[in-house]
C-alpha cells in the first residue's frame, strides 16, 4: 500500500505566558490509501492538535516547531497558507465532533456544499449542485433534493453529520481527518455513521484518521491504532495486536475501563490520577506517576521501539492474557 500521509517527529508547541505547552511532542505515523487509522487518547493528549497540524490550522501562540508531514510524498509542514488552502477541503478534509456547530446556521445546506466545491474547482453552480446531491445520496440521505434546500436546524443530529461527511467527501480527498465525529451522537446513529464512513473509505480508497477517545468505536472501524498520551504515541500497531494483546500499561488501563457485558458486577478498572499538567510534565515517562507497573527505569524517558509487531514506548510492557471480553 502506498502511504498517503507520513508524519515523522512532529512537534507542535504552544508558547503561552505560563510556559511552553508541548501539545504534540514527537509523533510519527503513516496512513496508507484506504486505511483507517484510529488515533486514541484522553482529552488533552494532543490527538486533535495532531489533526490540526496536518491542515496547518494551528493558531497563535502555537506552531509546528519540528518534524515533517509528507502528504502524497511532498512536504506540507510549514508551507505557505496558499499551498495549504489548496489542500484543505480538497485533498484533505475534516469532519468535526459536533455537527450542530460545524454547519453555518444561517446558510442553506446547498449553499454550503456548493461553496465547498467552488472554492477549489471552477465549475458551474448547476454542476456543483448535482455533485452535492449525489454526495448526499451516497451517505444515505433520502430525497437529497429536498434536504439541500434545508437549513441546518431543520435536520436531525445524525442527518447533519451525514451532511458533514458528504461535504468532506465532495472533492474526493485523499485523506479525511475525522475528529471525534460520533461523540455527540447517540449509539444507533453512531453505528450508522461509522458504517457510512467505513463504506465510503473502502469505495473511494480515501485514507482516514479517526480521532476518538472511544476504544469501542476504533476496535470496530480502524485498521491500525495509535494510542497517544501527553503528546506522544505510546503504542501503535495493527488493531488486532493492540486491542487483543495490549502491552503499554496505559492501553491496558484504557481497555480495562471500557464497560463490557461479560464482566457485569465486577468493578471497572480505573486509571489512577489525572491527565498530567502539560506545563509540568513528570520527569521520565509521562505516564509514570499513574502507572501501576512502574520501575526504577521509568524515571528516564522510554524510547519508542518495535516490540512484538508494534511500536511501543515502555520499559515494562504488560503481558496480560486477556484484558477485555
Amino acid at each position, binding site marked *: 500500500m502506498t502511504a498517503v500521509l507520513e508524519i515523522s517527529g512532529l512537534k507542535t508547541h504552544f508558547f503561552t505566558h505560563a510556559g511552553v505547552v508541548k501539545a504534540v511532542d514527537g509523533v510519527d505515523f503513516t496512513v496508507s490509501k484506504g486505511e483507517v487509522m484510529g488515533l486514541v487518547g484522553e482529552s488533552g493528549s494532543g490527538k486533535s492538535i495532531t489533526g490540526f497540524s496536518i491542515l496547518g490550522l494551528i493558531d497563535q501562540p502555537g506552531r509546528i516547531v519540528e518534524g515533517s508531514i509528507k502528504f502524497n510524498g511532498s512536504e506540507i509542514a510549514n508551507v505557505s497558507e496558499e499551498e495549504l488552502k489548496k489542500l484543505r477541503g480538497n485533498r484533505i478534509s475534516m469532519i468535526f465532533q459536533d455537527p450542530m*456547530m460545524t454547519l453555518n446556521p444561517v446558510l442553506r445546506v446547498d449553499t454550503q456544499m456548493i461553496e465547498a466545491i467552488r472554492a477549489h474547482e471552477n465549475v458551474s453552480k448547476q454542476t456543483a449542485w448535482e455533485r452535492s446531491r449525489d454526495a448526499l445520496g451516497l451517505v444515505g440521505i433520502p430525497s437529497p433534493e429536498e434536504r439541500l434546500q434545508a437549513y441546518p436546524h431543520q435536520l436531525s443530529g445524525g442527518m447533519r453529520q451525514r451532511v458533514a461527511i458528504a461535504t468532506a467527501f465532495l472533492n474526493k480527498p485523499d485523506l479525511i481527518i475525522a475528529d471525534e465525529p460520533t461523540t455527540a451522537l447517540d449509539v444507533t446513529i453512531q453505528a450508522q455513521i461509522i458504517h457510512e464512513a467505513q463504506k465510503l473509505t473502502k469505495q473511494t480508497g480515501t485514507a482516514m484518521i479517526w480521532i476518538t477517545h472511544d476504544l469501542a468505536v476504533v476496535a470496530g472501524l480502524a485498521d491500525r491504532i495509535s494510542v497517544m498520551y501527553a503528546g506522544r504515541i505510546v503504542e501503535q500497531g495493527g488493531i488486532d495486536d493492540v486491542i487483543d494483546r495490549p502491552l503499554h500499561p496505559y492501553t491496558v488501563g484504557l481497555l480495562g475501563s471500557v464497560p463490557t457485558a461479560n464482566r457485569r458486577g465486577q468493578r471497572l478498572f480505573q486509571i489512577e490520577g489525572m491527565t498530567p499538567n502539560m506545563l509540568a510534565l513528570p520527569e521520565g515517562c509521562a505516564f509514570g506517576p499513574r502507572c501501576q507497573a512502574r520501575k526504577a527505569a521509568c524515571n528516564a524517558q522510554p524510547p519508542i521501539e518495535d516490540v512484538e509487531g508494534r511500536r511501543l514506548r515502555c520499559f515494562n510492557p504488560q503481558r496480560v492474557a486477556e484484558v477485555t471480553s
Partner: protein
Amino acid sequence: MTDATTDSAMTAAPLAKVETPFQRFRAEFFESKIATVALGIFLIIVLLAILAPWITPQNPYDLAQVTIMDGRLPPGSEAFDGYTMWLGSDGAGRDLYSAILYGLRISLTVGLASGVIALLFGMAVGLIAAYAGGRIEVLIMRIVDLQLSFPASLVALMMVAALGKGVDKIILALVIAQWAYYARTVRATALVERGKEYVEAAQCLGISQSRIVFRHILPNCMAPLIVVGTVQTASAISLEATLSFLGVGLPQTEPSIGVLIANGFEYMLSGRYWISVFPGAALLLTVVSINLVGDHLRDVLNPRLKK
C-alpha cells in the same frame, strides 16, 4: 444505498415545508400586537411624509405660499387662501399640518440616511477590528471607547458647530456621533462568531478569508445589528431634532420637526400651545413607534429569550 431507505430514523421526518429563518422571524414578530401596531404607525408616518407634496394644502418651503397674515392661528382656523388649518399655524404663517409632514420628510431622511451610513461604516470597522486582531483592533477599539465616553449629543453638537448647517452636514455629524455603537456591537458579535466551529470548518474547506468574513460571519452578526440599527435610527431622529431645536441644525427656511418645536417654544407660555405641541407629538409618535419595533425585534432575535 438500499440500507438508507430501510433506516426509519432517516425517512420518518419528511420536510413538510421548508420554513426559512426569515419566515419564522416574521411569524414571531407579528405575534406581538404592540409591535405590529407600532410598525403600522411608523409605516403610516413614512407614507404621509413621502406623500406630503400631494396631500398638504401648502408648501411651507415656498415663501410665496406662506403669508404672515396667517401667523399664529389656532387649530381649525381658516387660512387666507381658503383652506382650513386643522392644526393651526406657526409664527411665520405656515400651516402646521403641512409643516409637520414636510418636517417629517427631513427628520426621517436624516435619521434613516445617517443610520444606514453609520451602520455600514461601523460594521466595516468592527469587522476589521474583530478579524484583524492585535494592534489594529486595540487602536480601533480605543477610538471607539474614547468616542463613546462623550454623549452622542455633545459629539454631534461639536461636529455641526464645525461643519455648519445643512441636511448633508447634519447627516455627516450624526454618522460621526453614532458609528461607534455599531462598531462595538459588530466587533463583540463577530468575535463570538469567529470562535465558533463553523468558521473552523469553513477554514478546513479551504474557503477564502473574505468569503468567511462576509458570507459566514457577517450574516450571523445581523440580529444584534438590526436591533441596534432601529434603536439608533430613532435616536438619530431625536438627535437631529435636538440639534435643530438648539438652532445649530437645519435652517429656518427648511424647518424640520426640531425647528418647528423651537419656533413654538417662545409662544408656549402665552397659550399658543399648538405650535410646539403638535410637532412634538409627531416626533414622539415616530420615535416611540420605532423604539417599540426595535424592542420587540430584540426579543424575537435574541436566542436567549426564545421560547
